[in-house]
């Protein structure tokens, strides 16, 4: 058995979150009745002409900077010609020879190891319409239905160098890329709605060899799981073929999610001849350097930068930092809370605890209300158990934490004069246990605390209770 090195390159299409389409002013919103968001331009009616949406260029530029690319002031649009029912003009307006961005990279963690994938290029192009097939798949359909609402939505195509080595790495890359796109606010990256799509090229070569193998393109990898599984399947399929001494066919394959396998679509031998040439209806882009530098300045803190800051500046663990980075809203909350004089660890514990579940259900609380809750808890005004009760109340109430505490009469009892009799009562009802404690069974201490708390209906200040118990039992 020879062992093989896997070489993977990805082509990712990201739908940009503009209000109107790339080349016309039709609405881009998802879920409208079919063919209700179309106009002469995006239907390819005779004589209609395209007009470039500035926002699409802005978003593509921002994506370029976020991916460490060189953004070119000069770029050009081209026509890529092919016939398909979802392509209204029978050509796609895209960028071929002079893309907007080239030569970038993305860094991300794989098993605690920082890895880097080169980005070859990013270019702007238009989306095609949507096909609905009469049968289960395109192959066994008698007819198809076309909806052009999606036609003309702006896309960026991000092409990586073939320097990804495992299916898992491909998934991690795509996850990080998706996170990045969310951070810079250019796309909602919903794979299930098709606003993030991924095709992969994969080839195998004998371990250590520098000669690339024949590459196979896999389409229809429409979830992170599909990407990883599709590549794993293909890795297996190709290595089996090679081990049997068979050649790999250069072809396009599609991932069949239900069957869990890739299926041949078209052999590359008859790859379409796209007859690409400069788009005469659109002058080249000549971006104003000042405008471009403003876009560059608008790039927010990116996931990896934030991760490093959370670990470095705030001393959080990789696990905690990753949580806050992956859930950017939680990260934002943390960063608002951090300067408010609360211990950083307790903020993270709070955010990752019950709060996470409740916030996902009901939406976030303001940093101010959270800070107050954490403060009164750490000051001992309320017990942890009471804090939880207040927290739940906060999501449905407009009162502040202190107001809720007051309203519910939740204040912690910390007065030894009030707690003393309760402690005495508890000890006197468990004389036998007190004896065992005094004989060295110190773990019973927690039991006594629990009993006191229960008797005090959870309102007792644990610090005071501890102190009182220790004093009593020491006698």
């Amino acid at each position, binding site marked *: 058995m020879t062992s093989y090195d896997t070489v993977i390159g990805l082509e990712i299409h990201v739908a940009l979150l503009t209000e109107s389409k790339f080349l016309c002013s039709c609405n881009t919103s998802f879920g409208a009745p079919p063919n209700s968001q179309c106009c002469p331009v995006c239907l390819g009616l005779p004589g209609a*002409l395209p007009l470039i949406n500035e926002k699409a260029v802005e978003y593509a530029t921002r994506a370029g900077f976020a991916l460490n690319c060189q953004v070119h002031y000069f770029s050009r649009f081209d*026509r890529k*010609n092919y*016939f398909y029912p979802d392509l209204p003009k*029978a050509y796609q307006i895209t960028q071929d020879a002079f893309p907007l961005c080239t030569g970038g990279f993305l860094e991300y963690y794989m098993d605690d190891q920082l890895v880097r994938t080169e980005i070859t290029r990013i270019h702007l192009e238009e989306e095609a319409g949507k096909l609905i097939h009469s049968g289960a798949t395109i192959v066994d359909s008698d007819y198809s239905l076309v909806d052009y609402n999606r036609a003309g939505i702006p896309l960026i195509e991000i092409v990586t160098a073939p320097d990804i080595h495992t299916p898992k790495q491909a998934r991690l890359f795509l996850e990080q890329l998706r996170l990045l796109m969310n951070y810079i606010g250019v796309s909602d990256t919903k794979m299930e709605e098709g606003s993030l799509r991924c095709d992969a090229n994969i080839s195998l070569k004998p371990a250590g060899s520098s000669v690339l193998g024949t590459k196979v393109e896999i389409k229809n990898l429409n979830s992170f799981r599909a990407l990883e599984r599709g590549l794993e399947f293909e890795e297996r399929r190709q290595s089996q073929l090679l081990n049997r001494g068979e050649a790999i066919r250069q072809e396009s394959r599609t991932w069949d999610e239900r069957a869990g396998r890739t299926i041949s679509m078209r052999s590359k031998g008859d790859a379409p001849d796209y007859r690409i040439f400069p788009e005469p*209806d659109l002058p080249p882009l000549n971006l104003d350097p000042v405008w471009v530098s403003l876009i560059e300045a608008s790039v927010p803190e990116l996931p990896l930068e934030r991760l490093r800051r959370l670990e470095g500046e705030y001393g959080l663990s990789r696990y905690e930092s990753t949580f806050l980075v992956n859930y950017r809203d939680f990260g934002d909350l943390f960063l608002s809370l951090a300067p408010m004089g609360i211990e950083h660890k307790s903020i993270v514990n709070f955010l990752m605890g019950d709060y996470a579940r409740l916030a996902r259900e009901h939406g976030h609380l303001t940093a101010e209300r959270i800070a107050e809750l954490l403060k009164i808890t750490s000051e001992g005004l309320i017990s942890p158990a009471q804090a939880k009760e207040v927290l739940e109340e906060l999501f449905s109430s407009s009162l502040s934490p202190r107001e809720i505490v007051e309203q519910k009469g939740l204040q912690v009892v910390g007065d030894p004069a009030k707690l003393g009799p309760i402690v005495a009562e508890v000890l006197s009802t468990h004389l036998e246990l007190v004896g065992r404690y005094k004989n060295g069974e110190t773990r019973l201490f927690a039991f006594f605390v629990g009993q006191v708390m229960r008797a005090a209906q959870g309102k007792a200040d644990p610090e005071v209770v501890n102190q009182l118990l220790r004093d009593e039992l020491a006698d």
Partner: protein
Amino acid sequence: MRKLAQLLETRQISSTEVVEHYLSEITKQEPILNAFITVDAEGALAQARASDLRRQQGMALSPWDGIPIAVKDNISTKGLKTTCASRFLANYVPLFDATVVSTLKNSGLPIVGKTNLDEFAMGSSTEYSAYGVTRNPHDYERVSGGSSGGSAAAVAAGEIPWSLGTDTGGSIRQPASFCGVVGLKPTYGWVSRYGVVALAPSLDQVGPLAKTVEDAAILFSLLAAPDAMDATSADARAFPVPDWDESFIKGLKIGVPEEFFGDGIKPEVERAVTDSLEFLAGQGAELVPISLATNEYAIDTYLTLVTAEASSSLARYDGVRYGVRVPAEDSNTMFAKSRSAGFGSEVKRRIMLGTYVLSARHYGAYYEQAQKVRTLIRQDVLAAFQQVDVIITPTTPSAAFRIGAKQSPLEMYLSDLFTAMANLSGIPALSVPCGKDARGLPLGLQIMGSHFQEELLFKVAYLVEKYVGVEGGTFSDKL
């Protein structure tokens, strides 16, 4: 047109009467001429009545409110069939107006109908129209030229006072020359292409055809405007109708390129042009012999680029959203059957050529090479305008040819020999009648200028027109 406008303004004549006059001319002449694909008599009369009402209320939209016009049938008119002279679009009714059509409507011009052309503007004689050839009003056995043959013939025959054409390689100027009218191919970008059905988007321009130079200038003054709907539209600038002051001719440098005279040009054509040149010299212009050596490559460059762009621009006619559909088992077969049934042979020929020059194996040798030669042609032309103010040549090497005379496509392509250069370099060029040959067929003279120099072209043309006169006069002359 000023006189007609005056009469409308003073309400000595109504728009309804004017439109009725032209409609009756159309009824009389169309059975032979075939300049129109669609005549919208009802619509035109309704627009005329609306114009008369506006005039009554003193709310005319422009001085030309109520003067009818015809539009080439590759320019979109909302609610009015736009066939491009193709079977593929035989029943196609646009959902929107081209910007130039909106302009006409906003100026109050009733649109009388849509004029004939070579299918998708591919041709030089209207013989490639799916709706039959347009005959030349000066000799019914001859072609009107093309592709804007219908627009030129209708004006020449007095079926309409003026019209819109499109020009990708000579398609306004050559028929203007054949029919004895004035036609302008404007500077690329000065007139909106929005709604104009594309042949070759980097070359196409809309322009005016009219009986007189002044009428063409008036129409152009309406059309020349920036359009936010067309990304290739030039910066804001208006075109005022020139004053016809003639002193500009003193010392004006007129370039006379040697490559456009002599071999291959009919002696009568050369004589008529030379005659006008001598007249202009007599008025004080300086004739400067120049060379435009790259014109040798103009036709091949033009054909390569026009077929390449056309093969792509016409790919949308696939039978999915509109137009012809021939039922078939699968989509690819449906595309091929529908396109083959809808397109005529010249369109298919050009699509085949364009596909070839763009295909991966041949792109470098043909398309890319032609783009580069285009740069050389452009440089050559712009260099000439460092030396001279305008360039004058014959519009075509000969007068209108007989219907059916051009047997091979290549022979037909040579009709654009003198005109393609202006499209390749984006400069304006105008054809003005400069006499007749022994058979009485009109001959045209082409004036080219640097970008946005239309005013100069009109002023020179005005002098030529003054010298040779306006054939047959105009409708308003007779009033």
